[in-house]
């Protein structure tokens, strides 16, 4: 994938041209020449998050709806990452299913993406044409009682009513997705808190986020950074049992 430049640990996504989260995710996995599985997904989570952060910082209106799709997938990636960093973290059956289904979706998407190249290469190259529209003999006026002023008026209003109004459709979907992000993060936060006996409620508060979208992304970013720290923290906890309170500084970056 030429959008992704190889680096030591972080893949910098240069041009934000991914239409959807699965496309982005697949390109990250393929750029590292990995198979689609939990391990590879955990590996690319940080890259994924840095990409959606760049998306949410892009202020153009057009991106706002799009970001929500990316965030939705981010929730599952967080689960996968959490699991890989904290192997003793217990996930619910529902969460395990979510992880499994993301893997499947990505595999399906990979199949479709590859086959869409075949479609592209064959589409319109050698066409089986239909004959031009023709009416064999002179038309004979053949009306039907269903043609009258009132039926025509109701038909046209039906047609006009069915013309989609762009914004509405997308927003409805968006709202549902935001809820699921909050659920995942809140519940994971609580479980980890009790698992390792520390509080990071303050930590996950967003830092000067400008919009809702941006705040969500901040939450994810903070959370992932936190996870990395917690992993280090766990080792400390095992070594020195007296460790009760860990002060965590505001992260600069992941």
């Amino acid at each position, binding site marked *: 994938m030429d959008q992704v430049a190889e680096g030591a640990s972080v893949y910098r996504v240069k041009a934000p041209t991914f239409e959807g989260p699965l496309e982005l995710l697949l390109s990250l996995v393929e750029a590292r020449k990995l198979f689609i599985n939990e391990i590879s997904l955990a590996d690319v989570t940080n890259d994924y998050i840095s990409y959606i952060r760049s998306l949410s910082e892009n202020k153009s209106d057009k991106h706002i709806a799009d970001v929500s799709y990316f965030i939705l997938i981010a929730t599952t990636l967080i689960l996968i990452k959490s699991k890989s960093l904290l192997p003793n973290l217990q996930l619910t059956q529902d969460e395990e299913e979510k992880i499994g289904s993301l893997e499947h979706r990505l595999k399906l998407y990979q199949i479709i993406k590859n086959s869409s190249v075949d479609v592209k290469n064959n589409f319109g190259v050698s066409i089986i*044409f239909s*004959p*031009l*529209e*023709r*009416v*064999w*003999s002179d*038309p*004979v*006026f*053949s*009306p*039907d009682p*269903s*043609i*009258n*002023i009132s*039926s*025509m*008026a109701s*038909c*046209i*209003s*039906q*047609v*006009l009513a*069915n*013309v*989609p109004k762009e914004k509405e459709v997308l927003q409805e979907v968006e709202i549902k997705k935001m809820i699921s992000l909050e659920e995942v993060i809140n519940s994971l936060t609580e479980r980890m808190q009790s698992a390792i006996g520390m509080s990071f409620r303050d930590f996950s508060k967003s830092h000067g986020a400008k919009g809702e979208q941006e705040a969500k992304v901040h939450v994810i970013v903070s959370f992932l950074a936190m996870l990395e720290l917690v992993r280090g923290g766990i080792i400390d906890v095992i070594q020195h049992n007296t460790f009760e309170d860990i002060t965590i500084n505001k992260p600069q970056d992941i």
Partner: protein
Amino acid sequence: MNLETQIEGLLFYKGEDMTIAEIAKLLSATKEDVEAALGNLANSLSTGALVLIRKDDSVILGIRAELSPLIQSIRKDEVTRDLSKATLETLSVILYKNGVTRSEIDYIRGVNSSFILRNLLVRGLIEKVMDPSDSRRVLYRPTFDTLAYMGVTSIEQIPGYTEVRKQIDQVMNNMTTENDN
């Protein structure tokens, strides 16, 4: 692909008569070659449903005479069948936007309308005219018979016409902006 097959494809596509000279030019062949190929084509068609009809210097692909009772009955079926909801909706678009292209109809309905248009044409409910502002474009409009059947002499007489027309034009505006990007 041999010449006779090319001619068959051409005639099937056009659905109207073509002169030998036209065919020869399109296929970069001599008139003599075309004549010979037409002979072969007539032979190879002899077992199927189609026939090559020759009139002076023109040919057209038609349906074998033995099949005409069948075609008559289909035609009757076509023009007497109840109009579907989709057909009526298409007609209403053509009625209110008096003079509309196929792609405009498709856009406003959100589906492809080609077969429906053919049915409306066969029934004499709509007709095709050349767009006065662009001779390559074909416009569809209701026939005079259709208006008369509805008891009006012009579209503007239909109650609520102005309002509906405004809404249609608005949708069509979106179409041009969408295509622009």
